[in-house]
């Protein structure tokens, strides 16, 4: 027995957990700290940061300097953030509306077929998101898959101008993250005791009431998890907003990407990321609380 190994139970436990501490530390904690630190530094116009402390990045979120160097309120970035939340919320809602029936349908299939359907749901992940988003340009764009037949049939006589709109961004986001909604909802529906549905209909609940009073409340954890899993990447998304929104209408994710790439303002990008991060953390706390309350209720 080599004596440099910890002998106590606590020491052995620590040793066993060390690899995960290491991974979490190197790949999550350290980058986060670097980002937080960068957000309080000054930008280097040639990229990177200057080691000079500054709150400029956070000030820039709300204010700008006018020609006389006075700080004036600038709603521009706030609007972008607000728009991002709006669009992400819309996309999340669309994902829920399309994702829930899909998950429910899969749950109703015979057991041996369910895994196959789940596999189908995940297939789009095998291809690059960029390529899949480009496909939407062909579908939605001028002279695209939707417009051409409608024009030919004389149903419309001008372009529908579907591209470069908030709608196009929402469709792109919905498409990109739909599987992230389907999977957690399926996971919770699969655990659902379907005898409860019979019990509800036996107690005079019509089909709608069976859904609203029994199925949805019982798979709420899956629905909330799915919404968070969709909402968070939507907030940070930049491919769909850039390609389908034409880059004119920025979202938070494209703004962050822009700061690090073209604008060379790393601290501002970091500050925006910190803002995004706080939003996510707040939502996760909300989720954890809801889950805890539910666990207390159901005693498990």
């Amino acid at each position: 027995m080599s004596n440099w190994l910890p002998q106590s139970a606590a020491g052995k436990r620590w040793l066993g957990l060390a690899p995960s501490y290491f991974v979490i530390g190197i790949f999550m904690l350290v980058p986060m700290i670097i980002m937080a630190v960068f957000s309080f530094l000054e930008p280097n116009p040639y990229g990177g940061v200057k080691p000079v402390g500054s709150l400029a990045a956070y000030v820039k979120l709300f204010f700008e300097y006018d020609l006389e160097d006075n700080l004036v309120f600038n709603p521009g970035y706030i609007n972008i953030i607000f728009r991002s939340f709006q669009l992400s919320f819309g996309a999340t809602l669309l994902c829920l509306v399309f994702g829930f029936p899909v998950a429910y349908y899969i749950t109703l299939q015979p057991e041996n077929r369910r895994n196959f359907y789940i596999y189908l749901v995940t297939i789009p992940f095998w291809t690059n998101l960029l390529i899949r988003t480009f496909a939407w340009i062909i579908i939605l764009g001028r002279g695209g898959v939707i417009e051409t037949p409608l024009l030919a049939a004389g149903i419309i006589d001008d372009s529908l101008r579907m591209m470069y709109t908030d709608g196009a961004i929402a469709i792109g986001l919905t498409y990109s993250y739909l599987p992230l909604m389907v999977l957690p909802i399926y996971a919770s529906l699969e655990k659902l005791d379907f005898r409860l549905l019979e019990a509800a209909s036996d107690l005079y609940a019509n089909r709608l009431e069976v859904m609203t009073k029994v199925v949805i409340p019982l798979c709420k954890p899956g629905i909330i998890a799915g919404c968070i899993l969709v909402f968070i990447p939507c907030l940070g998304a930049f491919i769909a907003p850039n390609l389908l929104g034409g880059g004119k209408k920025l979202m938070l994710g494209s703004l962050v990407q822009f700061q690090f790439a073209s604008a060379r303002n790393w601290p501002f990008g970091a500050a925006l990321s910190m803002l995004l991060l706080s939003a996510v953390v707040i939502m996760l706390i909300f989720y954890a609380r809801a889950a805890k309350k539910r666990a207390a209720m159901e005693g498990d």
Partner: protein
Amino acid sequence: MTTAIDIRGVTKIYNPGSNQPVKALDNVSLTINDNEFFTLLGPSGCGKTTLLRLIAGFEQVSGGEIMLFGEEIENLEPSQRPVNTVFQHYALFPHMTVAANVAFGLERLRQPKTEIEATVERVLTLVKMKHLGDRPPSQLSGGQQQRVALARALAPSPKVLLLDEPLSALDLKLRQAMREELKQLQKETGITFVFVTHDQEEALAMSDRIAVMSDGEVQQIGGPTDIYEHPVNRFVADFIGDTNFLDGEIVDFNDDLVTCRIGSSSMFEAENSGGHKVGDQVTLFLRPEKISLSAPDAASGSATRPGKVANLVYLGNQAAYTVDMGDGVTLTAQARPREDGNLPFAIGDPLAVGFSSRALRVLPQ
């Protein structure tokens, strides 16, 4: 007497048209009277639960019809049928309190709030669960969940209450206590109970009438004593209680009794149920509790036959004896332990075995 449920030639085939159709019910006809405690009894897979699910509306009949108080219910959704079910595993809503579970059906019926509250309180009192109204089901014991399930199904005052093996998940003591309570509850509420069980003791203890089922068919319908004392076939006699079967041939008969040869030369007399003739191959049956065992020297006036204890199983309040009657005939009989707790006979002891020929019956073929 009003007919609550009239089941007419109902057939149920699962997976029809597939390569493995399963016939769960085959041309079943029976009527259940209003205010009756009716039990569907049979081994698992006999179709009793299927029949219950057809009445509740969870399954559709493949043939025949089900009438509820004179009305055809085939096209009604479960939610439109004035019947409620107590499920085998209770199926309580885990996200609702006990009171909310009980109120669920009443709310769907759009009853006024004050009325719902009053009913919930009344039925929870009825099942002795009023003090636990605001608990979630997960914090209740199995017996308590059972009561909540019962209260939930009774709250909307259904015309018929369907009970799908509701006691099977409870331990023995609780099961026995619940039997009496269920019977009591049925009398108090006057609701027709249709009770599904595979436990013959449960069926005998609670039912007004019993339908014994096997392989998707009704074997016999009758009161508990009918079923126990006058089973119509070997399946019923075997499924209900313990019994001795003696296969033999009729050698003689008069108006009262038939005489059968069992084994090579043992003669047994049995009650003549009519329609037998010499040479018929028949099965006699004799319930163990109708056999008296005594020591050979202490034999009383009634005719006894000699036997020998081949085996015994101690059951506490009694012992089950396997008695070798010679000529390849064995009988199962019972004897109580003596007052000092010792068993009256040991393996190998000679016995005087007594039973009346009235207790021996010919099973209809």
